[in-house]
């Protein structure tokens, strides 16, 4: 566990947040898409994250023996995108008889996307990305300081 581990961890955070950002832009872009390859309207996509413990060297394991928390969880983790999931919420039904995808009653199934929700997610993802970026630049400064010793 050294300063380069810290850079690794922050870059995994950057990757994860960027992935989520891509999904959000896809959601906003497809807010009114009624046709998809799978059929039906576009469904909202979101990412699931999971913590993945950083591999410790043998020396570190030996040194930290007894200093680890009682319940065995390794406290230093990278973040990993496990995959995307489709939002289970039902499509929004909008009455628009002139729409080519309207059914016999004139109702169109629109994507289950709320632009306000997406903007909120966009901002929180942006902030998380910036936080990781700050850690990267701080760690970089620290590594530079060790070179000045």
């Amino acid at each position, binding site marked *: 566990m050294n*300063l380069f581990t810290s850079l690794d961890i922050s870059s995994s955070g950057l990757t994860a947040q960027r992935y989520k950002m891509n999904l959000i832009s896809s959601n906003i872009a497809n807010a009114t898409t009624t046709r998809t390859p799978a059929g039906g309207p576009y469904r909202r996509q979101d990412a699931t*994250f999971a913590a993945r413990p950083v591999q410790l060297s043998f020396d570190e394991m030996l040194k930290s023996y007894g*200093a680890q928390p009682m319940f065995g969880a390794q*406290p*230093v*983790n990278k*973040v990993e995108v496990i995959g995307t999931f489709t939002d289970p919420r039902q499509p929004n039904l909008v009455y628009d008889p002139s729409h080519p995808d309207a059914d016999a009653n004139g109702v169109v199934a629109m994507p289950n996307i709320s632009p306000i929700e997406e903007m909120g997610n966009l901002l929180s993802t942006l902030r998380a990305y910036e936080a990781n970026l700050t850690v990267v630049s701080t760690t970089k400064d620290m590594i530079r300081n*060790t070179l*000045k010793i």
Partner: protein
Amino acid sequence: MPIKIDAENTTQIIQRRLFDQPFLTLEDRIDYRARRQSLISSNIANINTPNYRAFDLIMNEKLQRPEFVPTPTSVKNDGNSVDLDLEMSKLTENQLMFTTLTMSLSKRFEQLRSVIAEGRK
């Protein structure tokens, strides 16, 4: 009774006092700060990870070694306990302390260099 000076022993004492002790302490502290930095970056990277618990590395003064302690923050609905503001302030503090330590280490080297250089004159 005159004090007998054992040359061998004196060299050893000088070596220990001048070279080993201050450096070992500083090295230890710098290592602690580097490990804490990894932990803080882990907490910030996992800000959106469900069921992730944030930890801190705190120096146990009695045992003279750092220990992992869960941060005393509230757990959100998704089981995540990362507090971004707390982590960012810890990050800044850690960076400042790290800079302080690396600077004092380089000052130690400077002192030694001046002792060596001035001693010859």
